[in-house]
């Protein structure tokens, strides 16, 4: 199993979720984060004092999928989250050793 971690632009959430559901992805954890990256760095003024805005609002998605579904899920996210403008986000894939569904005690692939 693989855990896919993706930072995306907040307004893309619904589209990405629909794409993933279409692939049969059954679950997702969404977190509000502040992202730092190439996109950051514009200057604002607050009460006369300049400052750098280093962080921009992003959403982080985390989902665990069977290893053979990972490729498709990454592509689905990448395609739907893309606007072509800076700050579209990143996707990372990590290996997951074990999974468990709390309600039933099912493990690994059955748990997803």
């Amino acid at each position, binding site marked *: 199993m693989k855990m896919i971690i993706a930072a995306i632009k907040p307004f893309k959430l619904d589209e990405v979720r629909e794409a993933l559901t279409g692939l049969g992805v059954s679950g997702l954890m969404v977190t509000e*984060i502040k992202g730092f990256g190439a996109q950051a760095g514009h200057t604002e003024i607050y009460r006369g004092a300049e400052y750098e805005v280093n962080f921009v*609002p992003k959403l982080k998605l985390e989902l665990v999928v069977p290893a053979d579904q990972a490729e498709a899920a990454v592509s689905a996210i990448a395609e739907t989250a893309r606007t072509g403008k800076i700050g579209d986000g990143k996707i990372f894939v990590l290996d997951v050793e074990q999974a468990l569904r709390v309600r039933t005690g099912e493990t690994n692939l059955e748990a997803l």
Partner: protein
Amino acid sequence: MKTLKLPLAALALSALPGLALAQDGPAPGVNPATDTVFILNSLLFLIGGCLVFWMAAGFAMLEAGLVRSKNVTMQLTKNMALFSLAAVFYWLIGYNLMYPLGNWAVDGVLSGVFGPGVLEAVGITADAADDYSYASTGSDFFFQLMFCAATASIVSGTLAERIKLWPFLIFTIILTAVIYPFQASWKWGGGFLDQMGFLDFAGSTVVHSVGGWAALTGALILGPRIGKYKDGKTIPMPGSNLALATLGTFILWMGWFGFNGGSQLAMGSIGDVADISRIFANTNAAAAGGAVAALVLTQLLFRKPDLTMILNGALAGLVAITAEPLTPGLGLSTLIGAIGGVIVVFAVPFLDKLRIDDVVGAIPVHLICGIWGTVAVVLSNPEASLLTQLTGIAVVGVFTVAASAVVWIILRTTLGIRVEEEDEVNGLDMAELGMEAYPEFSPS
């Protein structure tokens, strides 16, 4: 605001015929009885004006609560700025445009008095009063200004979350300097609508529908927010803070006692104060009726009560009673308000069906219920004629839509009125102001 300023003042005087004799009393220039009338009338305007001022805060909180958090700073900025600009421009142009005091450039249509409003001198005596039988000019100006600002507040809610700041503020200036006072002179300045017997006690049409028409025109020209309507479906964009929205509604409800009560324009006789009492009680009844109707109806229609509809329902009741808060009894007032509440519950999704995106429900509340309230005058006021009421509604509507459309279209073709798509998506707060309302709370 029962009727225009001067005639009413005359009326007030004539209602106190015997007081004149007090004049030959011993105190030259001081007449306790009629002085007291002047004082009490002025006091009514000062208290009333203060309450209507408070409505500016109510609109600000209601709208700040009903937009998404990424647009809250902008909504607050617009409300602060529009009120301040209204104060400046109603003084510079609007006040005299609205109250020609008989000096018409075009009879009954266009005031012949131009230039800034001027108050009475410091420390006046009866002789120096602009209108000794009425109230101090300062109190009248203060009171009237607040009505003008309220009109502008209505517009900001509908167009929230997508309109550029400065074009919106320019529209506000034109609305408060020209559009509102121009049409208001037709009724409250003693113009042709007043002469034909059109009745609008505190402004269901003159204030609320005008704000509503301007908002509707703007909404049509501006278009809906990105993502609001998709595949024929309405996508809810829940307000970020219903506690603020509720606070705003309570503030507006409170301010409305000044709005309707002060529009009695006199408090110096027992008849007047008893009338004001009726108005307070009726205004409250109508708001309650509107809220209860929306509560029950959303429960029945949607299986769960909808707080935002209940808030709109209370305001709908208030707008509906505004054209005639005096003559109905408590039962009829409750009913008029309740019908306002029903209207809102149906009108909000109906506008969505038409893809008219009204962020806070200002069009159902102020425009549709403003019309309803103006029509409902005929239910209790024998002097009202349905035809005249409809004429007034139509005249004001056609004028406001036309004037607003011209201004909106000029603004669109020059400055542009809509923010960039990306700015809208990211929120106006960061894009146009570089400042978040809740910088520490979760990013949206």
